[in-house]
């Protein structure tokens, strides 16, 4: 009897890219739901616009590149990029903000470099930084969380999405700086952290509402580590780096440096630690390298938040560290079994 042959191993692989991406998407749900809860419909609309744009752009470029469209879309990587970017956009953003950011992320940052696996920079963060630099006004259109003021209704949100200002809303009256932004601005006018934190914008750990969003991402992130979709090294090292440096400056000057928890539970720290810095394609790939990579992102987040021009810093910190990945990988190769055994063997 004749048989067809193949190279070993003759065993079903135990893992799939699309399943990993899907698990990451599922892990984003608690944080995303919290975000919708605290900031209203605008967040949901951003998610929808970004997702549709990502799929359309990915399909278009795949077609131009003569690559399989349907099967590639099914790897869910484009959708994940869109969701990560959308979750970083303010709730009052007009539709073209999510559209431009996502299109740039997918077409320029991902597909032009060769698509999944070949992009040196995190596409979602490239899209975010392009928007932040190009449209600073729209990118700061944040509103107070629902713990402080009512979020715009679904009708108002839809109107805002298409660039119309609803009559019932005074746009200048409803926008409000994020807690990180407030902290930065007010420290800049020499107020103490104690005075600043009395503002109702702040909650127990970080910003009011924001800290629950952070908890949501933390929960999802822990599940991802438990499910071994991501390694523990990058998130833990990142949070450790950020805690270490913010603790030192807090101890040196508690009046003009917020306590470490504030940094951990404000802005995009948790989203960044578990979902953005852990993007395998653009992160360091060695176990030791991932510790260094995460730790340095943590330090950079603090440095840019404290001394940079923007209130949050996850995107810049991640992109800067993306640059260093080849170097980190080169210098953190593990000792191969049977090499340098002189000091190893007994």
């Amino acid at each position, binding site marked *: 009897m004749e*048989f067809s*042959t193949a190279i070993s*191993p*003759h065993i079903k692989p135990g893992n799939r890219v699309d399943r990993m991406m899907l698990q990451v998407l599922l892990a984003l749900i608690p944080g995303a739901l919290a975000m919708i809860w605290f900031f209203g419909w605008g967040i949901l609309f951003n998610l929808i616009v970004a997702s549709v744009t990502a799929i359309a752009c990915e399909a278009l470029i795949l077609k131009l590149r003569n690559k399989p469209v349907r099967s590639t879309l099914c790897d869910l990587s484009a959708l994940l990029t869109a969701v990560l970017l959308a979750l970083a956009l303010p709730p009052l953003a007009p539709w073209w903000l999510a559209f431009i950011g996502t299109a740039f992320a997918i077409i320029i940052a991902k597909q032009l470099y060769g698509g999944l696996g070949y992009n040196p920079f995190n596409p979602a963060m490239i899209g975010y930084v392009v928007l932040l630099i190009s449209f600073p006004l729209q990118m700061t259109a944040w509103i107070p969380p629902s713990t402080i003021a009512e979020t715009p209704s679904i009708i108002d949100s839809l109107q805002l999405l298409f660039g119309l200002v609803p009559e019932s809303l005074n746009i200048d009256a409803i926008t409000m700086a994020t807690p990180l932004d407030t902290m930065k601005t007010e420290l800049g006018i020499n107020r103490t952290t104690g005075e600043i934190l009395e503002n109702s914008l702040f909650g127990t750990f970080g910003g009011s509402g924001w800290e629950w969003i952070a908890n949501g991402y933390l929960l999802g992130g822990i599940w991802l580590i438990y499910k071994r979709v991501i390694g523990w090294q990058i998130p833990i090292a990142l949070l450790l780096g950020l805690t270490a440096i913010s603790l030192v400056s807090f101890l040196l000057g508690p009046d003009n440096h917020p306590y470490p928890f504030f940094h951990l539970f404000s802005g995009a720290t948790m989203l960044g630690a578990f979902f953005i810095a852990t993007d395998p394609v653009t*992160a360091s*790939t060695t176990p030791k390298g991932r510790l260094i990579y995460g730790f340095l992102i943590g330090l950079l987040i603090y440095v840019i938040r404290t001394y940079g021009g923007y209130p949050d810093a996850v995107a810049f910190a991640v992109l800067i560290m993306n640059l260093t990945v080849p170097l980190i990988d080169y210098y953190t*190769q*593990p000792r*191969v079994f049977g090499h340098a055994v002189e000091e190893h063997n007994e």
Partner: protein
Amino acid sequence: MKRRLWDYNGGLHLAEHKTLSSTKAAAIASIPRELVIPLSQSIGHPAEPIVVAGQRVLKGEKIAHSVGSLSASVHASSSGIVREIADTAVPHPSGLNAKCIVIDTDGLDEEAPSSGLVQYEQLDPSALISIVQGAGIVGLGGAAFPSSIKLNPGTNRTIKTLILNGAECEPYITCDDLLMREQALAVIEGAKIILHTLGIKHCLIGVEDNKPKAIEALEKVRDELVYRNIDIVEVPTLYPTGGEKQLVKILTGNEIPAGKIPADIGIVCHNVGTAAAIFQAVIGGKPLISRLVTVSGNGVRNPQNLEVPIGTPIRDLVAQCGGYTDGAARLIMGGPMMGFALPNDDIPVVKATNSILVLTTSDLPETEQALPCIRCGKCAEVCPMELLPQQLYWYGRAKNGEKAQAYNLFDCIECGSCDVVCPSHIPLVQYFRATKSAVRTSKSEQQKADNARQRNDSRLLRIEQAKAERAERSRKKKAQLENKKKSQAAIEASVERAKNKKIARTEESSLENKS
């Protein structure tokens, strides 16, 4: 007493599928109508046939003699007539044919006279080594390294420990499990013979903890015989613990340095089946003419272990196991992780055949386009050699053999763990094999080019030298000529002078005479 164990990086917990065949006692396979016995059944040189077509051979009779030390003799597995010595399909990943002795068996199974020894303790190690070599014993774990070589590690290496490998970490395979359960005495006594041959005392037998019955059987025999120097060590079930490097690490904490062999760190490693075969050869006087083979997988009706005459065509073996099921899709020699797929079942069982697997489509990976590497590093997490397969793949794809070597490509043991965990379903091991062979080819081409350059350089040098020599010779000749001329001139001059003198004298005398 629990021994301390060590561990190695990564490894995989695979679905075992061992109960398919391990729940039944081993059976004796019947003698097939024809035996196809390859001349090359070990690493190294093929054996030289010492029979001719038409000759009658007896069971256990040597039919091909080993050539040099890295070679193993081959014996007839049953009695019959040699039909031919011809190129036929053999189990080899290349799928190429090789020389085999084909025997039409007569069903009498008539044995050649042989004599065992009971008092092997009085024998010199070299005598035992030649018995093992004469019996054609090779490593039965799958590597088929001639065992006699491992019994003679040389005087420059001090051996301290014998390790018997009973880990059997590949899914489906249970032949070593059955052997340890049913022939524990042969394993333990085999270990004693090897210890005696090596002149050492200590033996460790590593068995994975998914084989409690095997451990129990070995311990029972060991305790009955009061062999306190043989430790039976339960090791955790993890793939690829049965790899020699991994097992040595687990049992001793020491790593075999890259490019070295266990003997370099004072260890000799044999498979439990090899130990039993050595026992049969020394005590029973029996050459290696049969072995336990696991026939398993969902593609075969009645999976089991069988004692199979070497040279039995796989089709006969499968027929004895109830034949194929409807879904049979792939025929594999060895385990599902490192075994190789065979194109047909006319291929015979050889000494290295621990298992014949027949898998169905639902057991096998789907043939699909691999996705790009997303550098998730799962491969590095499971790599037992602590390599970075994601980087090796990257450089392999870029055909950058130099960089791949810098990332220790040649330390890859091709265990397939990275393949199984890769979410992009990249055939990593296939890439690594291809890169290795590309590097080897370019190395040998480089060597050839270097040799050619060297030859050309020395030729130019020779020409240069010859030229120089010629020039020197002609210079010398010229000088000689000149010297000759000079001396000629000098002679002529002196002759002239003499003449002149003579004339002068004559004139003088004539003048005198006149005066």
